């Protein structure tokens, strides 16, 4: 179902832990990287691959916010709005991004390029406000550098 490299990586993970089931989170990350999101058929496949039931897998997926059950934008802009970021102006950044992209939290631009997500503390409170675009951190945000960051994404 996945690329050869991904399948090999899954094999490696399943052999790595004292109990196979422990590998479920890293395996799901691989699946999500391959497919962009975790559809039912992907979960069925992961379950079979791990010797689990579909239910075992789907209940894990639904617990964790970093797994997506629906397609999302190419770039997931994850903006922290927790207190340290808020004190340093994250709400202004939020308004700026919302105006710039014409979407609010939980929405994706019609061209499928950006999704805007409100996230909890990312551990960058000393360099607030912060956002993650997919897995990359961007700190000390201002409306100006947010423009730069978003405009320069490939």
């Amino acid at each position, binding site marked *: 179902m996945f690329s050869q490299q991904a399948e090999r990586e899954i094999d490696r993970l399943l052999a790595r832990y004292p109990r196979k089931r422990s590998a479920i989170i890293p395996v*799901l990350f691989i699946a999500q990287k391959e497919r962009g999101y975790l559809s039912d058929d992907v979960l069925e496949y992961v379950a079979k691959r791990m010797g689990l039931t579909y239910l075992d897998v789907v209940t894990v997926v639904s617990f964790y916010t970093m797994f997506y059950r629906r397609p999302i934008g190419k770039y997931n802009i994850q903006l922290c709005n927790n*207190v340290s970021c808020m004190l340093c102006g994250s709400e202004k950044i939020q308004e700026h991004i919302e105006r710039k992209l014409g979407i609010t939290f939980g929405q994706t631009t019609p061209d499928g390029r950006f999704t805007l997500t409100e996230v909890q503390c990312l551990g960058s409170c000393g360099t607030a406000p912060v956002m993650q675009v997919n897995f990359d951190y961007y700190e000390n945000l201002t409306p100006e550098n947010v423009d730069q960051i978003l405009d320069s994404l490939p």
Partner: protein
Amino acid sequence: MERIISARFDIPNADQLDVYLEHGGYRALKKVLTEMTPEQVIEEVKKSALRGCGGAGFPTGMKWGFVPKDSPKPKYLVCNADESEPGTFKDRQIMEKDPHGLIEGILIGAYAIGAHLAFIYIRGEYWYLKEKLERVIDEARQGGYVGRNILGTGFDCDIIVHPGAGAYICGEETALLESLEGKRGYPRLKPPFPASVGLYGCPTVINNVETLAWVPHIILRGGEWFHRLGTEKSGGHRLYSLSGHVVRPGVYERPLGYPLKRLIYEDGGGIRDGKRLKAVVPGGASSPILTAEEAESATLDYEPLAALGTMMGSGAVIVMDEDTDIVRTTYSFIKFFAHESCGWCVPCREGTRWMVKIFERLLRGGGTERDLEMLVTLSDNMFGRTHCPLGDAAAWAVGPAVKKFRADFERYLTRRGAVAAD
């Protein structure tokens, strides 16, 4: 003051094995494996009065001592790198700048409790650090510090870096174990404690990143030396995460018992734009808020902060200036706890959501005096009625804020009056 745990933070490339070795790296591991019994290691850590730096502050040596020596089951050490307590960003510094220091601490801890497999459970958002730690472990393995027959002493220990996937609750140690077993991160009922029944039902110790990173220093310079750096009940220094309205936010290594005021004004450079202090959250989102007056005399230590009705927590100090709206900051905290409640215990699941609704009503201008009473009542009734500390933390984020900053909350009530008059 001599910097210890952060001493290597400023050394270029200290995250590389050769540089780490040049600066005293893996000497403590060698000492432990060649000169000390596991019991002696535990004894030294007990003498140090090192307390868990993740939030609960449990004495580390005692925790290690709880692991049964005669158990035929494998034992595990788990490093808790799920750093997600709002305001906290210190563990990230250690993993970024001195990762071998953490690996060395993990290996010493594993030796002390008799574990041959250790895990680093790292929050999924720190993906770049997960990859970094994997590279660092490979490097250490090639150097003979990780894996089989470490330093030729016959001690085996491997380390797996395991990602979380975005759930604050997995920082709670038993929820972390559930997650590591490949399940939803629901906290377990205690007892039994993980030291006897932990990962896969086997004896397990879970320690925070910073806690483990202190261990090599304690081994090299002695438990008594470390103890003397701090206070009577809590040894050593801590990494404080300073954020909010200060001139110089950042991670500061300072002793236990350090005056909060000095951290804010001397280290942090005071309040931004010459403003006055209004409030401080001293130990992450889970610790009750202090007024400026209370902050005046507060010292960063477990018992003195407990006497002020708050706690040391993860050492995350969030500073708020005179213009801060405590209703909005408290709303942010309660939204966080409502989002992160795992839903298992009714008082937490329902209480946090109920509080969110009340805050939204207040902020819209439709709040009443009764809403403020209800926030306090909910807080009182959630506290102590959930089986992990998340419910307590949520209660503590709200109740004391309403009581101490009532004027902020009442502004929203009068605003409603103004709206009605319009």
